[in-house]
């Protein structure tokens, strides 16, 4: 930030900078990122060091990949990863296929009931999953998807679609309508103007909506826990927790290794798109 007139007279700028910036920032990093450091070094510590009270817990003396090996050889981690990938990819594709055109319609087209439908979709975005997981078990049984990973592909769009629709209708509103108007004068239909003009222009918005949808499905827990019970059909968050914490016994090393590996893909995706993330959130938040 540029110095403001009043700030130049500070007696000891360096000490002030430490007090008001570096100390709180250090605390914030310790609080927010510390647990991940702890996760990492636990995953790398052999059991002999992990459960030795005389060794310092703050660093690794003899790093080893034993816990990762355990994860790949003695659990179904690879299967869980494939499952999570599949569910996240398919449900994101469904969410975009339904949500982008609907977002366009709500932003651009005037038709009867548009206001009501827009409001209803926004309300479902705010309905938490923990309200509906009990009946969802029965509803999935009714359509023959009980205890199947496909139930997740069907259910995740219920919270992804409202989110994508909401985000995209906000995004379409920021694109000027002139280009579509011109294209229509040139003979494109309404649908053609959406498909050939508006959607290509909205590509950045669609990209961020897709990223959020993908990570939301990657991270989902309560439906994945309640709708699927066979171990070979689980996703990473549920598989890691259920298989590596049995009764009162915790496999701490493999647990941390699994938590780490399950977190890495979303962390990488976000680190590339952190700016779109912030702007997408506020575009939706401010404009509604």
């Amino acid at each position, binding site marked *: 930030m540029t110095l403001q007139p009043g700030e130049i007279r500070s007696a000891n700028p360096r000490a002030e900078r430490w007090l008001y910036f570096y100390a709180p920032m250090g605390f914030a990093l310790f609080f927010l990122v510390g647990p991940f450091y702890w996760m990492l070094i636990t995953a790398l510590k052999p059991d002999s060091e992990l459960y030795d009270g005389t060794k310092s817990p703050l660093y690794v003396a003899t790093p080893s990949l034993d816990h990762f090996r355990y994860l790949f050889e003695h659990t179904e981690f690879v299967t869980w990863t494939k499952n999570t990938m599949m569910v996240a990819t398919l449900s994101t594709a469904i969410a975009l296929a339904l949500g982008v055109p609907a977002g366009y319609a709500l932003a651009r*087209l005037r038709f009867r009931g548009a206001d009501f439908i827009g409001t209803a979709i926004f309300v479902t975005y*705010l309905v938490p999953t923990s309200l509906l997981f009990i009946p969802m078990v029965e509803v999935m049984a009714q359509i023959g998807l009980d205890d199947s990973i496909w139930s997740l592909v069907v259910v995740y769009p219920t919270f992804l679609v409202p989110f994508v629709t909401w985000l995209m209708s906000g995004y379409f509103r920021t694109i000027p309508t002139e280009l579509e108007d011109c294209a229509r004068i040139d*003979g494109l239909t309404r649908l053609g103007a959406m498909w050939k003009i508006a959607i290509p222009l909205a590509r950045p918005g669609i990209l961020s909506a897709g990223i959020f949808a993908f990570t939301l499905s990657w991270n989902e827990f309560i439906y994945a826990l309640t709708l699927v019970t066979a171990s070979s059909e689980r996703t990473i968050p549920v598989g890691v927790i259920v298989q590596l914490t049995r009764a009162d016994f915790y496999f701490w090393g493999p647990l941390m290794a699994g938590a780490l590996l399950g977190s890495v893909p979303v962390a990488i995706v976000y680190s590339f798109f952190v700016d779109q993330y912030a702007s997408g959130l506020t575009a939706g938040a401010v404009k509604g």
Partner: protein
Amino acid sequence: MSLTTPTTPRPRRRRDLSWLIDNERALGPLLVAPVVLLLAGLVAYPFAVAIGYALSDRTLADPGVFVGLDNFVDLFDNQIYRQTLRNTFIFTAGSVTMRLVFGVGLALLLNENFRFRRFIRSAVLLPWIVPTVLGTMAWLWMFNPNFSVLNWILVHSGLMKEGLEWLTDPNLALFSVTLVNAWRGTPFMAITVLAGLQSIPHDLYDASAIDGAGKVQRFRYVTLPLVMPVLLTALVLSIIWTFSDFGIVYGLTKGGPMNATHVLATLSYQQGLASGNIGEGAAISLTMLPVLLVLIIWQLRRIRRSTVI
């Protein structure tokens, strides 16, 4: 880009369909119909099913019969339910307060100029973006009675003689799960408020400085009012998500010790699916509704106002 390709008006051979794709009164409903069908079938319908369950004595083994409001009456007589309700409010109020204080503070820090800014901004987002329960596992390990690194630090730095019972002491356990929830939610608050801060035009600060406003006054009269809309939205979402949160309590304590950390979502899971009392479980989760409705309506009214202006 598709703009440069010349589009010659086509002879309308598909006359029978063209009204559908060229008329906004027809195309609009057509484009939103799949969404409406999906939400009707998999949100509205399950919600109706949940109400049916809550008014019955259904269990996993027995479809049950209609019992009216018995489940709800029983709940309010139930000591565990009343404690859960209390826990849920403490959990929500505590976590949201911490998110607000830490989140706004962090946003102000991130808004400064410093080295590795981009990197640090991504790093502090981690708790928010990784799968909640997986991040929670790191805390479970940090709260471990025998190998807690937090206790190790407290004891070795001489701050305490003995470590704390983070998850086994009933009072402390509620604090611990609340802290972890705040840990997860703080980045969301920070990044949202930061985006709000960065949208404030710089000349407003220059103008207020010329008018003689000090640091505190600039925050009070320029920053705060302009960030408020974004802040309130982030706040409403945080309250809804915390109030209905399942993963953190499930991951850390499953509601224990002695129900000291049960929240509505975990109790409804335990009663409804783990113990098989589906009617009671559905009733428990539906008691979230009044609070959720108030928040949703309030948020809807705010958005209405902002789009009209």
